[in-house]
């Protein structure tokens, strides 16, 4: 067993025992309700906005396609036969 391998269990113990609990989000655990609400609100806003835009665009395009198909069918059927 190499010396590096012998130190591995010790390193693992140190890695588990030494680190302190850290929160990456500076406002998630803020005692002020206003701050937490702002964070929650913006999270919801940023999550739903792209979905809303994509869904809105899809609905609009679908409606445009339907209108086009309807008008083209109408034009085709109303064309006089030669």
């Amino acid at each position, binding site marked *: 067993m190499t010396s590096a391998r012998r130190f591995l269990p010790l390193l693992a113990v140190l890695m588990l025992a030494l680190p302190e609990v850290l929160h990456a989000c500076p406002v998630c655990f803020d005692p002020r309700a206003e701050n937490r609400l*702002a964070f929650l609100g913006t999270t919801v806003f940023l999550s739903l906005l792209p979905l809303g835009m994509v869904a809105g665009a899809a609905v609009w395009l679908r409606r445009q396609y339907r209108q*086009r198909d309807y008008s083209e069918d109408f034009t085709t059927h109303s064309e006089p036969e030669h």
Partner: protein
Amino acid sequence: MTPMALSERLEPVARRPVLASGVLGMLLFVFTEVMMFAGMISAHTIAKAGAPEWPPFGQPRLPERITLVNTAVLLLSGAVLFWAGRTWKRKPADAAPPLLLALFLGAFFVLAQGREWVALLGEGLTLTSSTYGAYFYLIVGGHALHALAAIMGLAWAWRRLWTGALTPAQFGATRVFWYFVVLVWPVLYLTVYL
């Protein structure tokens, strides 16, 4: 049925596209721009909620009333461009005057914003004076840059319309960008100024 007639029947029918490629490209670009402004608005909201005082002590209040008038001018510009779009469908040449009017109203908005900035700089609100100043210049400045680009787009569209070279896709893409500039502003006003 002869083979010739059959091949004629099976030939794909050219269909009218529901959306011009130029307009679609502009819409995708606008989607990304919306997300950029949404990110800045969110950051501003969190900074504002976390600050003990907003605006911070020693920093001037933003001119809400005069900017409200300016907001009305920008919205009017959007409405005039909408009218130009309607006119274009009937007779393209008739869309030139409302397009030019929309351009001037937009230019008025940017110039008035610039005047406001000069006054605020004189009162000590700079990009580095506080988080308040940094967010103000970042968000409102970002919008002003977009407004400038859109005004140049309108000017380009007007010139092409004048020479009879403006295509529906070009006009559509220009209008989409200007509508974005107009419609995002009230949100920024409500977030930053009030």
